[in-house]
């Protein structure tokens, strides 16, 4: 367990650089997982773009102009769309939407699912059985279909999009955390805590929950990419967040509808942005899983 906790901190390299022993562990991680390092670079680029969007953008992402469907040029780096908006600035600002919706929905779904998994695994018995059946039901639909129906039922808005994307994550998170709780629950130190008179809620929250952090982090990294993709698909279908937010998915839907041939840049750049963002989370997620998941270590 000590090793698991130890390596978790590698997820934050800045933190790892503060102390000498940590640094060697971080360097070891980067050397062993070059793809993971590439993932960190991509994620850092995405984060920087989102934070500095106002500085990096050259135009107002939502203001229309008479420069309609201009090909990429010195003035408009990636060209303009059908309403004369600068595509580069829109793609830069789109990173905020993807990151905010991706992170918020992933965290919401993972925390909710994690708590359900904790209760399910720790309490066990009939409660466990009931919760597991409910999770089965929630998993009987493909993620996108469930998110689609939820988004349609809730109506288009930023919070509703986040909720619609987070719900399909709940059963997946619950399954995962339940499995680790089942294993941790049987360890000697939990028994020791109980013998000392620590109450159940405290054992569950303070003694068991912190040790599920490894799989939890792996889950969040893996789901972040999936959430960004679902947001793109929902926005593409017109069920994501409404105008005027510049969302990568919706930029593609406008392009696909009419302008794909006349203005291929409208297809290429937003899609590339989505792919790179998701690629980064997937690279990092894979490397973290190899490091944190003892079952996969060495394979």
């Amino acid at each position: 367990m000590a090793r698991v906790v130890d390596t978790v901190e590698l997820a934050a390299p800045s933190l790892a650089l503060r102390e000498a022993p940590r640094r060697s562990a971080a360097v070891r991680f980067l050397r062993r997982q070059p793809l993971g390092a590439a993932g960190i670079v991509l994620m850092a680029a995405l984060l920087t773009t989102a934070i500095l969007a106002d500085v990096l953008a050259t135009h107002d992402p939502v203001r229309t102009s008479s420069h309609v469907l201009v090909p990429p040029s010195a003035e408009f780096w990636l060209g303009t769309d059908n309403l004369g908006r600068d595509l580069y600035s829109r793609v830069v600002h789109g990173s905020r939407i993807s990151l905010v919706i991706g992170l918020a929905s992933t965290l919401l779904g993972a925390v909710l699912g994690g708590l359900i998994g904790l209760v399910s695994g720790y309490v066990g018995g009939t409660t466990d059985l009931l919760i597991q059946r409910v999770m089965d039901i929630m998993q009987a639909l493909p993620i996108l279909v469930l998110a689609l129906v939820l988004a349609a039922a809730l109506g288009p808005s930023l919070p509703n999009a986040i909720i619609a994307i987070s719900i399909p994550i709940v059963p997946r998170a619950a399954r995962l955390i339940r499995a680790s709780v089942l294993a941790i629950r049987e360890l000697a130190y939990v028994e020791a805590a109980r013998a000392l008179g620590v109450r159940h809620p405290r054992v569950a929250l303070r003694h068991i929950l912190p040790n599920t952090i490894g799989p939890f982090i792996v889950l969040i990294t893996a789901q972040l990419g999936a959430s960004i993709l679902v947001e793109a698909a929902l926005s593409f279908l017109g069920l994501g967040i409404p105008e005027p937010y510049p969302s990568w998915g919706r930029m593609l839907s406008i392009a696909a509808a009419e302008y794909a041939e006349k203005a291929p840049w409208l297809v290429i750049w937003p899609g590339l942005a989505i792919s790179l963002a998701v690629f980064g989370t997937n690279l990092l997620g894979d490397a973290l899983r190899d490091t944190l998941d003892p079952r996969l270590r060495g394979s």
Partner: protein
Amino acid sequence: MRGYVTKRLVIALVTLVGMSMVIFSLMRLAPGNIVDIIFESAGYVDQADKRLLERELGVDRPIPVQYARWVGELLHGDLGKSYRYDMRAWAIIKPRLPVTLELAGLALLFSILLGVPAGVISAARQNRPIDYVLRVLSLAGLSMPSFWLGMVIILLFVRSLGWMPSVTYVSPFDDLRANLWQFVVPALAVGYRSSALIMRITRSAMLEVMREDYIRTARAKGQRGTLVVWRHALKNASLPVITLIGIEFAFLIGGLVVTETVFNLPGVARYLVDAIQFRDYPVVQNLVMFIAIVVVLANLAVDLLYAWVDPRIKYGRA
């Protein structure tokens, strides 16, 4: 074995009943009932007409009665009526089924043809350059929205070859070649994504199997390396791959939703999006239930297949 089958069947049934309740409640989350939506577009509302329609559709009855009525109709194979087209839903779905099945089938075929060999090669050459290349390619497949990949491939075709697939749907019975041309790109786009998942599970299953004693035995007795990998190891690594392909089936349907829309293929998934956008909720409700049934049946089939193929599975406890 019989006990195991019964148990699995009961679980599948419970899941479907639960799913029907979830879908039914979700559809009632949306503001306004179906009658409001139908009348909304008309502009002028005659209250008597409205009440008449409410009675006809049964939305003036208590919620449990409405639910019972819906499930009753479903059990009789009645998928309801589309208000947008003023047709029976089944009459709309039926001609669309072959389109979705062809796309799903081709995508599944591509994903297996690409994913399994890639996974085997990757495992056999673990940590060599080819392993890294294949792993990066598979991660890239997981990272691209399949609808975008399809758009880019079409763009490339149009730009470099001046070639364009038919904009309208061509039936395979009218012109098989044109039909296949039309389906290859979307099926590849969806299949590439699924092949990435199949490749990953094949690779890890292969790596696990390759450490087994009997593989060493096969090598020790002088069996050729390729034969050991492709025959001895792959056979035993195939179980998790089969499971994943079953689960993948559900995933694939999700991928079809957007792909059919982008490629203008008149399939069932496209119709679901249409129905959602035009708030044709009775149809949405039935289509989503239909998808849930397909997914649950696919998972059930895989569970049973798995138990049948692998005698090590303990039927009693699973």
